[in-house]
């Protein structure tokens, strides 16, 4: 499709202290219906959104972390996580949940790609639209 635009949703905030993470996810899922070229970026405290085994019972809010694993069903296949942001918080790729998508042959591929800060800047520069949460 020639009028497809490149959309990048940038997630910078921790998952539950504010409404940003959940709102971003909802916008991504709704926007996915419009068949654009969608990528997600997680940096700064946003990397905490993808931590595996989140439990929110103690803070009395819905645990929406499992929704990220449905992104592949919505054809969102590119999820970039900034390496420096992980390292600055004592985290590594092993702390993140697994998010996969299927190709046309129904083979599963990992959707998460860890990128360094310079590569993240390149990814941002290549977009038509950037939405920051």
């Amino acid at each position: 499709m020639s009028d497809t635009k490149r959309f990048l949703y940038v997630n910078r905030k921790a998952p539950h202290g504010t409404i940003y993470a959940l709102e971003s996810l909802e916008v991504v899922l709704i926007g996915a219906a419009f068949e654009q070229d969608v990528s997600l970026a997680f940096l700064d405290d946003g990397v905490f959104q993808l931590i595996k085994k989140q439990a929110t019972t103690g803070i009395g809010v819905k645990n929406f972390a499992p929704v990220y694993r449905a992104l592949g069903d919505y054809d969102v296949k590119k999820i970039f996580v900034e390496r420096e942001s992980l390292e600055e918080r004592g985290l590594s790729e092993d702390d993140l949940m697994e998010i996969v998508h299927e190709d046309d042959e129904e083979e599963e591929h990992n959707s998460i790609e860890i990128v360094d800060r310079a590569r993240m800047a390149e990814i941002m520069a290549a977009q038509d639209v950037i939405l920051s949460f």
Partner: protein
Amino acid sequence: MGYQWNGQEIAADEEGYLTDLSQWNPELALLIAEDEKVAMTDEHWEVVNFLREYYDEYQIAPAIRVLTKALKKKLGEEKSTNKYLYDLFPYGPAKQACKIAGLPKPTGCV
């Protein structure tokens, strides 16, 4: 609005989606289906149960195109076409089936 079930008042939003998902049970589903003018058959239950499983796993009610894709994998080509689903749930499979399944309105449903 809400539903009268077993002498209890079950709360729902103005469109009839349950407020508290944990109050759902199969009998209540039949009651909601009746309100939706859907006569539940095994084929209806297949879709409703599938939606509940999907929600259990992903905490989200899938949009229609996601539902058809996932159903195709699980039940095959015949039981995943838009036509098949609209025959079962004439007012929109994602919306009606989710309501009967006690789930919130699907996200990304335009």
